[in-house]
């Protein structure tokens, strides 16, 4: 634990942990450091509650806090972690509660002094804007990736519908299957399963074709004639009924 009333030179590295100040020159940071308000919390003490108006950011100098919503714990944060950054720039009610889980030392930076500093020192403002832009770009990139993921996911489900409709083309999933993540694996498994099922179906179709009874009538007529036009058959035919009836009366 740092001593109470941490001297300025020790506060500097703490501020460097704040992402928003990464681009801020050191002499400007010194000014910001003097604005930090030191807070000491005992175990179980709350920093703020969900829904509270938020107008400040916090940097953990020592100890540990939990971010939670009632009993549901969202995250734990420790030394050098920062929370509530955006609230210091743009006030908004807190989206979660934060409570110390052990004796904790925090630095708070309020919005008013931060804005005053940004007005005085243009470099601080530029640094903050730069970082915000980076955030934004990363989010746009993430969304792009999410969108692509969703599109490729839709392709897998479209492929499933195509299988049902009998118009499935295996190549339609090649791009999705090239992914190295779980969606890629799902797609590869899907392709393989469809291949196996369609093979099985093919075999079944062959067998069903055998079930179709096709009789070559011309061939049949020839084969029948070959037998029935013999003299033996003609005689047999004449005798047949008498042969049978010859037997019947005696057996009855």
């Amino acid at each position, binding site marked *: 634990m740092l001593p109470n009333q941490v001297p300025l030179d020790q506060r500097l590295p703490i501020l460097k942990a704040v992402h928003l100040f990464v681009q801020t020159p050191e002499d400007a940071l010194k000014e910001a450091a003097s604005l930090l308000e030191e807070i000491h919390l005992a175990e179980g003490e709350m920093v703020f509650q969900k829904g509270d108006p938020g107008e400040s950011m916090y940097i953990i100098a020592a100890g540990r806090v939990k971010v939670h919503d009632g009993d549901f714990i969202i995250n734990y944060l420790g030394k050098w972690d920062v929370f509530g950054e955006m609230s210091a720039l743009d006030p908004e009610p807190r989206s979660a509660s934060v409570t110390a889980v052990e004796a904790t030392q925090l630095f708070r930076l309020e919005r008013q002094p931060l804005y005053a500093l940004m007005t005085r020192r243009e470099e601080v403002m530029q640094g903050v804007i730069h970082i915000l832009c980076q955030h934004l770009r990363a989010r746009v990139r993430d969304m792009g990736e999410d969108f692509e993921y969703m599109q490729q996911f839709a392709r897998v489900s479209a492929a499933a519908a195509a299988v049902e409709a009998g118009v499935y083309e295996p190549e339609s999933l090649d791009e999705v299957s090239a992914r190295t993540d779980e969606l890629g694996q799902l797609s590869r498994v899907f392709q393989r399963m469809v291949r196996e099922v369609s093979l099985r179906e093919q075999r*079944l179709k062959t*067998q*069903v074709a*055998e*079930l*179709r*009874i*096709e*009789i*070559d009538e011309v*061939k*049949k007529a020839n*084969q*029948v004639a070959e*037998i*029935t036009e013999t003299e*033996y*058959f003609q005689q*047999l*035919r004449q*005798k*047949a*009924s008498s*042969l*049978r009836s*010859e*037997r*019947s009366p*005696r*057996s*009855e």
Partner: protein
Amino acid sequence: MPKIISIHSFRGGTGKSNTVANLAALLAEAGRRIGVIDTDILSPGIHVLFGLGEEAMRYSLNDYLWGKCEITQAAHDVTGNLGLEIPGRVFLIPSSIKAGEIARILREGYDVGLLNDGFRDLVEGLDLDALIIDTHPGLNEETLLSIAISDMLVIILRPDAQDYQGTSVTVEVARKLDVPRLALIVNKTPQVFDPLEVKARVEQAYNCDVFAVLPHSDEMMELASSGVFSVRYPNHPLTAQLRSVAGKLMA
């Protein structure tokens, strides 16, 4: 009234002899006196199923055809070989399995007409309820005679193109001989086929009764020719189907 029943298939390998043996055993089990005559002189086989070895064959169908014995002397009571307390009787009239005697039939032929007298003597002499003729595949003279004098012809076929074609010829020929009853058994049906569908299609194609659509059975294949399936597996579903066919033979 005693019956003469020919069981035939256009090609070999349909399981004809196996079916004959099973039907005979099941009818004997139901108390009937059944004769089984192997007219497949050129390639006899059914004696194996009934456990009748060469040394136990006193006389064969060949001896009768050559005038060496009465046909009833060639009848062997194989009921005991089935291995069950069976109330009925199964008499087997085997064809000779001696190569020389098969060759002689090929060389000299025989008076096919004698077969007819033989069938009649068997039915009367052994007081049979039914004589089942295990015919030679194809439609040679003795098969035609067997069909001509039979009260019933049962054709066994597999569900494949060659059997469909051949069966159509046999059905046509049998109709020209005015066989009183004609029926089909579809055997060795692959498991993927729906038996009801097969029955409907075959009945429609031949305009003829289908007694049963029997599945391809691995147990039956395994048992092969070392015994009679229905005796070995009395509670098997296939046995139940065969039993129902046996009932239809006597109906």
